[in-house]
């Protein structure tokens, strides 16, 4: 998109103004994330760049907040809890969501709109409402303040992502392949694992990653229904930011950013693979 040679001075000014504006928005988007990284190596307990950091004095930088993070029992405990809850809820969400998406992609299913609306409702309903409702209901069932309650809640919140991504993968799925396999004598189970599964795998994995991220990042439901025993990383961050804000939070944030970079890259690679398999070259 270059300036066409016939453009007048006004159009030229407009063209550069537009580019500057876009650059500013990109900076707005990315700056808060980039700023965190150097700040987390601050030697002082401040949330701001010190004189030494600006002059690139090596003494002004340190890894003390990372050490504090890795030696604190509360943080280590929260990592353990987050991993446990995220693992089980992702597994459950991916299995239930994939099955449901397979059903939803069949033309014979009645009330499809209604079912789809129900299944993605956890994504639409504000989390604070879901959290309040779950607090009452799970307490009356006696499963609040337990791993089970938190895992069930996070599974419910993660399934819409799996349903959406797998349904999207299945929309380009050629059902003749299944018929051909059956025609050649394969049993339905064999067909599922040999034909369907490899083709929808990218959708399943990216849906599962979304569900994993949801569970890993979820704080509202967690602060309502989890007890001290189940304290997750976001819960620990939440109380850290509210009570006394220390750069340890920034160290954790940097680690989480690294984590999301890996996630983003994985999802991107999967998306391209999926497009390639389905013959959509972009």
């Amino acid at each position, binding site marked *: 998109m270059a300036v066409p040679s016939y453009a007048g001075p006004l159009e030229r000014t407009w063209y550069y103004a537009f580019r500057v504006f876009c650059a500013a928005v990109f900076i707005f*988007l990315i700056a808060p994330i980039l700023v965190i990284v150097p700040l987390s190596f601050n030697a002082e307990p401040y949330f701001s760049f010190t004189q030494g950091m600006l002059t690139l004095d090596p003494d002004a930088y340190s890894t003390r907040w990372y050490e504090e993070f890795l030696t604190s029992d509360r943080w280590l405990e929260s990592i353990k809890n987050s991993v446990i809850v995220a693992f089980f809820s992702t597994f459950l969400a991916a299995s239930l969501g994939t099955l449901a998406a397979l059903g939803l992609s069949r033309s014979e299913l*009645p009330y499809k709109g209604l079912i789809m609306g129900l299944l993605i*409702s956890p994504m639409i309903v504000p989390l604070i*409402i879901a959290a309040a409702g779950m607090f009452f209901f799970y307490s009356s069932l006696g499963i609040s303040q337990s791993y089970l309650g938190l895992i069930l809640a996070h599974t419910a919140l993660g399934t819409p992502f799996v349903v959406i991504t797998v349904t999207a993968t299945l929309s380009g799925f050629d059902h003749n392949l299944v018929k051909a396999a059956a025609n050649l004598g394969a049993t339905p189970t064999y067909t599922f694992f040999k034909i369907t599964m490899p083709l929808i795998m990218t959708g399943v994995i990216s849906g599962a990653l979304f569900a994993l991220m949801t569970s890993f990042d979820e704080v509202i439901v967690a602060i309502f229904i989890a007890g001290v025993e189940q304290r997750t990383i976001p819960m620990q961050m939440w109380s850290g930011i509210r009570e006394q804000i220390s750069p340890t939070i920034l160290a954790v944030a940097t680690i989480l950013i690294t984590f999301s970079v890996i*996630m983003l890259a994985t999802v991107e690679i999967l998306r391209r693979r999926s497009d390639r398999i389905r013959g959509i070259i972009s």
Partner: protein
Amino acid sequence: MAITVDASGDLSPEEQKRLKADLHRSLFRNKVRACLLVAPLVVFILVTFVAPIGNMLIRSVEDPQVNEYMPLTSAALQDWDGQELPDEAIFAALAQDLIAGRESKEIGKAATRLNYESSGMRSLIMGSARKISRIEPPYKEALIEADKDWADIDNWKVIKRLSSPYTTSYYVAALDMETSPDGEVSFVPENQQIYLKLFWRTLWMSMLITAMTVLLGYPVSYFLASLPVKKANVLMILVLLPFWTSLLVRTSSWIAMLQSQGILNDLLVWLGIIADEQRLQMIYNALGTVIAMTHILLPFMILPLYSVMKTVPPSYLRAARSLGANPWTAFWQVYLPQTIPGISAGAILVFILAIGYYITPALVGGQSGQFIGNLIAYHMQGSLNWGMAAALGVMLLVLVMGIYGLYSRFVGVNNVKLG
């Protein structure tokens, strides 16, 4: 199974019937199979997600405390007409309830509930309960002597109103209205209104944030859509990385950026734009909420806009130009109308997400940047007025569902895309 065909090539009537039945059976079996695949998740969502919200709906109209912990008084008051002070029988029922409630130590629950409705009721009930062991019949005189508030007919009207196990009082209070002892509903004076003001603020701040995301997101999406795919994909990382980064990380980073000793203020002081003692207050107020939430929700606007803009052929704009339109007319008449679906999809998505926000306003909003979600959390965890939290939650839910209805009419549930 063998199908016989007669000489003309047609199926015999019996064969046709059998074939139809077979087809029917096979279609039915497929239908059942599809339902069975969907069933586990449907049941799971109904139990773990829909049931809790239904439970909250019930809780918002449920009001069992007075009925449960003052059962005799509640029953006795059913036939009371509210014209004059209750008779001795009702006072006796009250005395029995106070004795029983004092023994089980649960009279306080009814007293607290009554106090939400009319302050002073708690001390009236608890004070009388303490004295009840020394009180002898006739109860009417004795109780009035113990506390003259029992002679106030309005207090009895409050007890009668709350004696039913169901109530609309939480909704009445959530709409900033109050019920007079005679049962008339009216708005509280404007300077005492909390909830309507907060609903109103939540709505207009969400609208402002939505408008900001359109304003910032539209040019960027247009820019991305006009680039070759390879370059666009690289720049897309700048949109997707924030999208994938934890909400708490982004919020805490805005605290580091905006606070008075933060990076932005330091930068402005260093550049000499503001003096050191005049550092701008950009956080812990409405401005902080708007900035942080605009940043957090911007990707939700850019992604649908971008995917719609990719489908608009650039030749349309060139055609408009070569037919004599100036750049503005070409954009306004040709390009913009074709991107309306993207704008509405993104705007409704951002708006729905914004009105339910809780974490970001709580951390960077201060007093003036709080949303309705914060008040729900306050009633859940602070004041422990759960009925009120439930009523506010249901009202917010109705609001979101209404907007979501619009969304599915304009965009369709099946068109929700991720990334």
